[in-house]
């Protein structure tokens, strides 16, 4: 509001000017209110300005990949829920797609539509909560978060109805989904989709044009497109930097080729763009949802002609080979790489976790900004520690 807020940082060279400035090293996390879990950053501050930042991960490490290599393929499904516990549906989808690729399973249309509907709902939930948390990090005392959570609850109700669980859904199966969607549930989803634009408008008028929000967000934490590409950033963060890359368009996996939707691109790659691109992505998701709900037709929800190996999931042995399945998860490209040696357990199992890879540019984005900005920048990356640490 009162000053161009670009922080003019001047590297104080103590040799040249003869000044002795004392830096302060603070540990933000793992017990810190706004590190989105048990993340830790060691920040060296000069006054309030970030001089260096070292992310320290691993406080939530649960040996996800090793566990998956010691259990059956289908037993990994509930574990994927716990990767990014905000988006269990898209995690399920990525894992299911990987194994289906390995076992060469054809999936019926209705199952694909249900998967798309679920993962787009997940995107809504994720984006709406991350924007709420971002504003919370900025100091808007929980109001945006709770506004967002009101909508999130409605979606979670649907998840509960279809899968029996609100967050750890474990809904998808190799070859389809666990249970069919009833007409009631479809109606429930239709109502959410119909109501959502009004909420988005409300949410936007609440803060999108607020001067303090703009001051805190615009031109803060700029991530240049080049760096974003080199660091293999994906998802809304990459698109906020102006790079047109969306796996839904690139791979056209599932039935995404049947929908009309656009990819919003950011202008500068700052926190504000990351925030606003997510807002726009939600509107696009709603478009997809509307089309999917229109196009979905009755039919089988599990592959009717299951390969012999899938008959008994406990004894499921895919052929020898490797597969990499990826989806456009709300946070970016979520991929599962799996190598099968023909036994019941994967020989190698690896997760390409978008949160983790997006987090790698944190220091580059934070240096030269203030401590308060570093928190907001971290919030704009959208991490979930379950996925970062695995």
């Amino acid at each position: 509001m009162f000053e161009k807020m670009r922080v003019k940082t001047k590297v104080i060279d103590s040799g040249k000017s003869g000044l002795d400035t004392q830096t302060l090293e603070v540990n933000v996390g793992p017990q810190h209110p706004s590190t989105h879990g048990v993340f830790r950053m060691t920040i060296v501050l000069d006054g309030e300005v970030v001089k260096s930042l070292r992310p320290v991960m691993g406080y939530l490490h649960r040996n996800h990949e090793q566990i998956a290599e010691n259990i059956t393929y289908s037993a990994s499904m509930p574990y994927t829920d716990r990767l990014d516990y905000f988006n269990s549906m898209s995690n399920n989808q990525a894992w299911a797609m990987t194994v289906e690729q390995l076992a060469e399973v054809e999936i019926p249309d209705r199952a694909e539509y249900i998967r798309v509907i679920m993962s787009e709902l997940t995107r809504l939930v994720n984006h709406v909560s991350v924007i709420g948390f971002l504003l919370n990090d900025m100091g808007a005392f929980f109001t945006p978060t709770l506004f967002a959570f009101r909508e999130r609850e409605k979606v979670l109700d649907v998840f509960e109805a279809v899968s029996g669980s609100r967050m750890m859904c474990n809904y998808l199966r190799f070859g389809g989904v666990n249970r069919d969607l009833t007409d009631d549930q479809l109606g429930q989803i239709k109502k959410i989709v119909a109501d959502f634009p009004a909420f988005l408008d409300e949410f936007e008028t609440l803060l999108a044009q607020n001067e303090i929000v703009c001051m805190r967000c615009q031109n803060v934490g700029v991530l240049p497109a080049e760096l974003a590409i080199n660091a293999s950033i994906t998802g809304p963060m990459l698109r906020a930097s102006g790079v047109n890359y969306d796996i839904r368009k690139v791979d056209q996996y599932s039935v995404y080729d049947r929908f009309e939707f656009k990819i919003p691109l950011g202008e500068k790659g700052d926190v504000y763009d990351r925030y606003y691109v997510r807002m726009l992505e939600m509107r696009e998701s709603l478009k997809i949802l509307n089309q999917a709900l229109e196009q979905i037709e009755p039919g089988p929800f599990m592959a009717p002609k299951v390969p012999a190996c899938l008959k008994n999931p406990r004894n499921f042995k895919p052929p020898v080979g490797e597969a990499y399945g990826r989806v456009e998860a709300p946070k970016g490209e979520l991929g599962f790489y799996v190598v099968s040696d023909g036994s019941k357990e994967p020989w190698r199992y690896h997760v390409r976790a978008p949160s983790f890879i997006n987090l790698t540019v944190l220091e580059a984005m934070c240096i030269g900004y203030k401590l308060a900005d570093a928190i907001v920048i971290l919030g704009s990356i959208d991490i979930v520690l379950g996925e970062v640490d695995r």
Partner: protein
Amino acid sequence: MPQLEFLIKCGVYGLMGLGIIAAVGAVLLPNLFHAGLALAFVLVTIAGIFMSVGAEFLGMVQILLYVGGVMTLIIYTIMLTGRLGAKDVRAQNRQGIFAAIAAGFFVCWIGPLILKTGAWPQRESDSAPPLLSVEDLGMSLMTEYVFPFEVLGVLLFAVLIGAIVIARQDRPS
């Protein structure tokens, strides 16, 4: 009412005693931060003494300027110049004994002089309202003392600029 007067007297003497203890602390405490806070306490007691002799305005200015302004500045400087977690260095130099002798001599010389001079003027009407209202002070600042007042204004302005110029960091040209 003599009883009330006694109470107030006790209060004033108490303030003086506390002030002296705190002053000793301000001078001798090895931790500068503590010394600064002790000084703040001395300043508050002196403000109390000002109030007790009817100089309410000055008492308030004392707290506002000294405690709120100067003390904050001093403590801020202590924090700026002291390293976090640095070891305490010796606070006093080796002139302690000489300084104490000098001060003792000073007190022993002037103290008796004060006590011997019996004829200090004493005002009788103790319970009378304060002699000077804020209005009086303001009027005389704008009339009789207007010249020093203006000079002071210029001085403060110069100080403002000077302090900024001295303390600001050199900008590489």
